[in-house]
């Protein structure tokens, strides 16, 4: 059941960009999280059974270059405007997880006509004063485990992040942290101007949220479902921030259902 995948580099307005494309069927643009899941993972493979999945690495993540020209989340959004042009994708549905969800919303504000539908999974970008966000930029791995996963002993954690400085994925993880900080250090993981612009996103939006997300509380999802013109919300019980890892089957089924409706 392995799909055919191809990893390559494309030039996006001077930024050398790593992209993996796999599967068959209609196109789907997957915008990854701060964790930097830019390698083909279990749930990408599952999505590829139904879609042609485009998995680019944001500038600064994986082997994508160009972080020096990224100064804010808006620069990421413009990068994806350019990437859609390079890939020749006129309109496309987006799955955006965490940082990728935030990027997706900013992109949809800039170019609403290019985004047909959007799934937001535990998305960053919004600050709810009454529901404070957790501390992502810690280098305490044990703390991060409990912050990000419903079950801090879950075997899926090993799929998602390095567990020590000796782990050979540590460099990629540190790069991911750096790129995330570039756009999300201050203001912390959000754009204070974003709520005022959400009305500009006309496409259908499906919001998925882990009820036990300690990084980005579920209150954020509840805010978004009201603020976006055309959105619905599905809350996953006993699920943390890393929902696509923790609930891969249900996550993929949600994507399939929403995009084929």
């Amino acid at each position, binding site marked *: 059941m392995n799909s055919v995948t191809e990893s390559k580099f494309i030039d996006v307005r001077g930024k050398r960009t790593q992209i993996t494309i796999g599967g068959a069927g209609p196109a789907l643009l997957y915008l990854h999280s701060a964790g930097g899941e830019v390698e083909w993972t279990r749930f990408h493979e599952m999505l590829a059974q139904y879609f042609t999945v485009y998995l680019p690495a944001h500038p600064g993540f994986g082997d994508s270059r160009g972080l020096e020209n990224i100064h804010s989340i808006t620069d990421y959004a413009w990068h994806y405007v350019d990437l859609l042009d390079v890939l020749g994708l006129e309109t496309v549905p987006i799955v955006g997880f965490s940082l990728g969800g935030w990027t997706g919303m900013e992109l949809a504000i800039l170019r609403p006509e290019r985004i047909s539908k959007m799934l937001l999974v535990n998305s960053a970008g919004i600050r709810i004063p009454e529901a404070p966000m957790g501390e992502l930029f810690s280098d305490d791995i044990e703390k991060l485990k409990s912050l990000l996963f419903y079950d801090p002993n879950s075997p899926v954690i090993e799929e998602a992040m390095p567990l020590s*400085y000796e782990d050979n994925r540590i*460099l990629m993880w540190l790069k991911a942290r750096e790129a995330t900080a570039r756009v999300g250090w201050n203001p912390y993981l959000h754009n204070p101007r974003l709520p005022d612009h959400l009305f500009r996103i006309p496409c259908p939006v499906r919001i998925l949220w882990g009820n036990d997300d300690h990084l980005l509380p579920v209150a954020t999802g509840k805010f978004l479902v009201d603020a976006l013109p055309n959105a619905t919300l599905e809350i996953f019980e006993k699920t943390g921030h890393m929902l696509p890892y923790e609930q891969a089957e249900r996550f993929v089924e949600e994507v399939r259902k929403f995009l084929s409706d």
Partner: protein
Amino acid sequence: MRFFTFHLMPYNKLPDDFEENYGTAWATVPNSLYDPVYGHELYNRFLDELIYAEEIGFDGVCINEYHQSVYGHLPSPNLMGSILARQTKRVKIAIIGNALPFYDPPTRVAEEFAMIDVISGGRLIAGMHLGGGPEYDSFSMNPTFARSKFQEALDLTVRAWTEAGPFEHYGEHWKLRHVNPWPTPYQKPHPPIWISGEDSKETTALAARRRYSYLGSPYFHKSFLKKNLDMFRKACKKNGYTAHEEQAGWLVPIYVAETDEQAWAEYEKHLFYFIRKLLKGLMVFPPGYSSPKSIARIGMALKQFLANITTREEIEEGGYAMVGSPETVREKMKDYVQDFGVGNVLGLFQIGTLPADLTNKNMTLFAEQVLPYLRKELGEPATDEEISNALATS
């Protein structure tokens, strides 16, 4: 060989349960623990200790900048430096340094350092620093811009000291239409520059390229310190010259008493106050502060960091502190200085809760019984002329 007394100005009155109930000595350590009436006494005592260093023959005094911290409650070294400029007559005043990205605009560094240099009659050593990892939390400043801000601020400061104003500066981070600081430095073309801080390849390469002096991270096992100094000297070679010993410094806690046993008996609990309480949370590497490779390298060396050391034996073996009788300390230090190849020793004679009387005795014994021996063995202090010949000053 030059000897400096370095002072962290730590806050030495923390609750007994500090280790258990407070996560860090930095950034978020609650300032309700601070007692300003006691602080009055403490600041003045610490200044007295630095002034005493001049009386007993040290070549210089040294302070640094720390924000929202009990490790050193010293947010403005320039305030302390200007007091020292006025209250001393001979010693170098090494401020190592100003955390450049935290000065906005960075021409403030050019101004304040020039003031201290002028007041002291040309005795300032101008340290330039990236700012500590935890301080990017203290100021919510984006650490992924730390390096480019530091670079721009350093270039601007040196330019402001060497090029007649007014001139325009249009950089990535600052746009200044009229750069024209008053006063300009007493030392020409400008005070000696030391680059201090974390041991990334980026920092050592910069110091080597510009022929500045380099002061690596303290509190690591001697083998890691040596490796970093070697990395710096290699970078100097790459730039086509051999590093002068004046370009390297070694920062180390020192305690001298009448005998080895007495030294440890008097010192141990104060040193461990420092290790267990004050070092907590210092080694934090916010994202982008150093390259991923440098962060990974230091991350793997943390086992060799003083905060993770628990016994006297480990301290002696790793050279984390020089403790003992005058004979012991001078023999040890002679070996270390020769092994490291450094021309500047920055001794921490007060540490943690070490009280005033023991600090005074420690400094006196060092100055009378260790320093003269080391000078004889390792050479007299370099003159200003020798140093400026060794270091590029533009």
